[in-house]
């Protein structure tokens, strides 16, 4: 008995070893392209950017100097970059809560409807699908100070009771805003377009999250005395949407930091009236590529990377915590 068993295990061990050696080779071959590309296309650039951020390199120069933390110092002192931070953070802080809030609101409303759900869902998702550049140009045209739809509609309200609102009243007497040409309004217009484009995405994610809420919990809440929609929301819906919210907020934040299309389309040079819309991505583009100041472009890139990594790590940590204590 024992002898036979031993030989059987030996033989099977041999085949499994041969098999696993073959597997190993195959596995490396299969993963090789991905690995190589990961290193070349994802990791190497990050390292290169990191290194270059400490230099004053320009494309076309044969050499460069190490300038230490000069670039980073510039980032934190020069007023241009102050505007960059202001514009970027204004955008993020405005777009993220509103876009997430609208997405949640739309999802709740649509979820509670009996009919026409799919129609609303489809329509609200259209901006997510449409090429942002094309739609941005459409918006730009709508915001044209004289022939754009928006100002025309506002002008139409002159002489009507709505003129009571100070904004309208000023516009009627004076002139309605130039929107994209006005340093007070430009950033808000960009925020609006960003929200317009993104909230549909959040809505769909929330709708998916809502289907995961146990129906019986609402019944339990009713039996426990939760009578209004707000109570049900607080007791059942909002906690159940926790993971979804973490995810939605993170994704929206990261995309907000990456805003570029609208800015470059509207103001190809300069980043908006008085640089009021001089966001990070545009700064990287202008400094790094248009002005060939690779050093400082890299520094901004590293900063951007840091922001995004921090956000993602926070998200991961929050999700881990929830999973543990669910």
């Amino acid at each position, binding site marked *: 008995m024992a002898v036979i068993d031993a030989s059987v295990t030996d033989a099977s061990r041999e085949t499994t070893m041969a098999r696993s050696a073959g*597997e*190993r080779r195959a*596995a490396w071959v*299969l*993963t090789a*392209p*991905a*690995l190589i*590309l990961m290193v070349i*296309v994802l990791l*190497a*650039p*990050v390292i*290169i*950017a990191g290194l*270059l951020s400490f230099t004053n390199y320009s*494309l076309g120069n044969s050499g460069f100097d190490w300038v230490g933390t000069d670039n980073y110092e510039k980032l934190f002192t020069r007023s241009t970059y102050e505007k960059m931070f202001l514009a970027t953070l204004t955008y993020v802080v405005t777009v993220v809560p509103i876009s997430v809030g609208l997405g949640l609101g*739309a999802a709740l409303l*649509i979820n509670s*409807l*009996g*009919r*026409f759900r799919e129609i*609303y869902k*489809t*329509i*609200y*998702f*259209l*901006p*997510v*699908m449409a090429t942002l*550049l*094309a*739609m941005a*140009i*459409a*918006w730009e*045209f709508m915001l044209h100070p004289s*022939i754009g*739809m928006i100002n025309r509609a506002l002008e139409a309200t002159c002489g009507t009771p709505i003129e009571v609102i100070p904004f309208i009243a000023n516009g009627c007497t004076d002139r309605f805003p130039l929107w994209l040409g006005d340093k007070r309004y430009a950033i808000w217009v960009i925020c609006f377009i960003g929200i317009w484009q993104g909230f*549909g995405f959040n809505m*769909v*994610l929330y709708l*998916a999250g809502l289907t995961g809420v146990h129906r019986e919990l609402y019944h339990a809440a009713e039996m426990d005395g939760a009578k209004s929609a707000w109570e049900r929301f607080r007791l059942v819906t909002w906690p159940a949407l926790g993971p979804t919210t973490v*995810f939605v907020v993170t*994704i929206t934040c990261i995309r907000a930091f*990456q805003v*570029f*299309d609208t800015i470059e389309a509207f103001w190809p040079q300069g980043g908006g009236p008085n640089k009021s819309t001089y966001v990070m*991505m545009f700064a*990287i*583009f202008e400094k790094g*590529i248009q002005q060939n100041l*690779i050093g400082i472009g890299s520094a901004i*890139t590293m900063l*951007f*990377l840091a922001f*995004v990594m921090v956000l993602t*790590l926070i998200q991961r940590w929050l999700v881990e915590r929830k999973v543990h204590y669910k």
Partner: protein
Amino acid sequence: MIRDWWKHLILTLGVIVVIAPFYMMVSYSFKSPGEIDRGEGGFFGRQELMVDERCVKLRDPNRDDIAAAASRFPGQSDAEIRDVLVAKAEADCAMRPVVFNYSKAFTEAPLLRYLLNGVIVTASIFLIQVVVALPAAFALAKLNFWGRDAVFALVLFCLLIPVHAIALPLYIMLAKLGLTNTYAALVVPWTISVFGIFLMRQFFMTVPDDLIDAARMDGMGEFTIVWRVMLPTAVPALLAFAIFSVVAHWNDYFWPRIVVTGNRDLFTPPLGLREFKGDGDGSFFGPMMATATVIVTPLIVAFLLAQKRFIEGITLNGMK
């Protein structure tokens, strides 16, 4: 149902805000410059014949033309002949606004070429992504090898890197290699989709090992298994990923803007539109809106035909 009226009211207001630019874009692509200026004509515009000024200018008769035409108009002064020729030119150059807008969209700039570029680029990116990601995902999901955990940890780490962050250094690398303004530049940085690897791995882990063992017993090599066995089972997930990839890259503006600077032949649709905008003067809103409509339409139509799939694909992230 009646109780819901206020919900429908709010949602309809939302619909108006959401649809407004689409409406305007399509509507103005039908209208003549005059109608655009004055903001009239309903949705389709009145479609009255308009005169294409540029076309007329092109056919502006010079001295030789007038001399050549003199034989046909005996007894008329030069000025009168000129008028007649100009009037004829105007008549020839009259067309309906919608025709004007859309034909200009395709002739002022090589829009067809741009669309073709869009197709080439998105298709190439997706295909290469699949070729790279699928085998790697299979290996990570189903094969045991030393270093597997390390590779997967690398994948997870790379997920943290937003693509926009590597744009600048990638551009430098490509510039050094002289590869800017090429299809390769447009495609190569996107060929590695860590997200795709992650997604496919999740999916493959749900495929029963028996299926793969059976294939091995049939004599299939690992590589064959990936394409013959795993690919067919992964079609739904791949479809969702395809949609995600195609939409993202058809609409991408940032990277092409960086990497394609001189060569118009390489413009992707968003770049083409942007150039149109830069070139045109005020009277070219119509054709510009027509271009925008043409660029946006393919995805929108596809979306309307397969909404569930699209929403699934674009919100793939949610499946994590």
